[in-house]
């Protein structure tokens, strides 16, 4: 089978704060220019001010695989997902994707408190990449899934946080791109709703969609994924069947 995603040696470098700031004012930029023209040797930021959030990661994913990404906080999981989602650019390397990508790094992106539930479904759908026609077709399913029928025309600022989350997740759950990227989004609602979400995602993956799933909840990673990647300090430490990789992750955690 031909892979749907090829990740080739991607790296992402960041400056640590304290070194030249990321959003300088005009004055700072001018001063930096002046300084560098005066001492031609001294303008290199020293290497200690730089760090690799992701370093030289490569892997391939086949269509229909559900890949869990595990690792500690700050290991580089989100950076990796943001690169694949095209939100940030890698410093080196390339990614080839042979299909549409939808990323849900949070749910309800772009929800506006003053707009009604109905309006937010369409707005959020458009932002995450759904077509209007697709939203019209799935609208009733989304509303039923979220269980907010009675409050559809109420501004979402009056929603309880549970209702808000359910509606936001319902839109996300009905989005079916070829590659779906999920970052911790399942951590919403009560246990029953989480289970419903997981079921929905399994259903999506069975239809041949490829899914990336980042979560600290190893139980749902094990339940849901077929394969896992273990990221540690920006590097790919392990890649294989979900059980083996999550075991290795637990082992690693207990060592520290």
């Amino acid at each position, binding site marked *: 089978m031909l892979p749907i995603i090829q990740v080739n040696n991607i790296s992402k470098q960041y400056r640590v704060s304290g070194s030249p700031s990321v959003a300088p004012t005009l004055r700072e930029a001018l001063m930096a220019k002046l300084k560098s023209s005066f001492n031609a040797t001294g303008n290199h930021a020293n290497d200690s001010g730089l760090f690799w959030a992701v370093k030289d990661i490569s892997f391939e994913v086949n269509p229909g695989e559900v890949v869990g990404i595990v690792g500690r906080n700050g290991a580089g999981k989100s950076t990796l997902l943001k690169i694949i989602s095209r939100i940030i650019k890698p*410093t080196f390397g390339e990614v080839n994707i042979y299909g549409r990508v939808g990323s849900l790094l949070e749910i309800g992106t772009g929800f506006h408190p003053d707009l009604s539930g109905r309006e937010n479904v369409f707005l959020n759908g458009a932002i995450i990449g759904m077509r209007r026609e697709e939203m019209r077709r799935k609208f009733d399913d989304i509303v039923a899934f979220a269980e907010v029928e009675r409050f559809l025309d109420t501004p979402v600022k009056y929603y309880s946080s549970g209702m808000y989350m359910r509606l936001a997740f319902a839109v996300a759950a009905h989005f079916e791109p070829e590659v779906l990227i999920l970052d911790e989004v399942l951590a919403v609602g009560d246990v029953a709703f989480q289970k419903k979400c997981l079921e929905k995602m399994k259903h999506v993956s069975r239809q041949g969609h490829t899914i990336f799933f980042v979560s600290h909840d190893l139980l749902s990673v094990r339940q849901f994924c077929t394969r896992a990647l273990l990221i540690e300090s920006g590097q790919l430490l392990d890649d294989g069947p979900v059980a083996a990789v999550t075991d290795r992750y637990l082992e690693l955690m207990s060592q520290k």
Partner: protein
Amino acid sequence: MSQVSSNNPELVPRSSRDPLIKISATRSAIIPQLTEAWDHRELLYFLVWRDLKVRYRQTLLGVAWVILQPVLMTLVFTIFFNQLGHFPSEGVPYPLFAYAGLLPWTFFANSISTGSSSLLSNSYIITKVYFPRVLIPTAIVGVRLVDFLIASAVLIGLMLFYRVGITRHMLILPVLVAESTLLAVAIASWLSVLNTKYRDIGTLLPVLIQVWMFASPIIYPSSMVPTRWRSLYSLNPLVGIIENFRAAFFGLPFEWRAMAISAGVTLVLLVYVIHIFNRLQEGLVDRL
């Protein structure tokens, strides 16, 4: 959800192995990005719709503000520049003259002032989802374009009041509206992306807008500018737009020279901004 993979057109394996999306460290080419922006026009529509809806829901006067802003300005200008200053107005009643200049100006000035902060104020979306970033400032211009069209209705009302007839010259209006929209999109996009790099833009812009207003034929006709300065003056693309906007409404002779210069400057700016935006959007999310 009844689809199975075999009849879902999106899941049919592609015969060619050219990736649909290619992510790399090198700068993306411009043409594919423009195509991509065009493919996202539905999202553009939703972003404009969102802002209009929210504004009309949050503000008491809603649509009235759109008209009140140029109307109040016209009132002020009429008192100070016409009654006290005796500014000429090409034989058109001064309030009409001023309002017709203020319409495209208000559209332009509001577009660039809200547009300049648009990437910053929408950072909560662009750090979470990818879509062509240029849609954000473009949507702001879209919202202002709707305001512009609404406020234009008042001009027609004023013309009836002053018994100024409608002529065939109005046929050029779509061209002028299109040009001012392109110009507004170019400047708003440019400022918005520059603003993520240098936050000074936000402070500098109100002053710049003031200067720009006095350098445009809004409170005075461009015939007041000495002839030898006229070419330099016309390099301000708003000169050609505003003068011909008035000519279209009041049946005055068109200023073709100013029009041509204005179109040329707009085009050059547009091409420049497409390049600079493409360059500056690279580290955009890293800077937010």
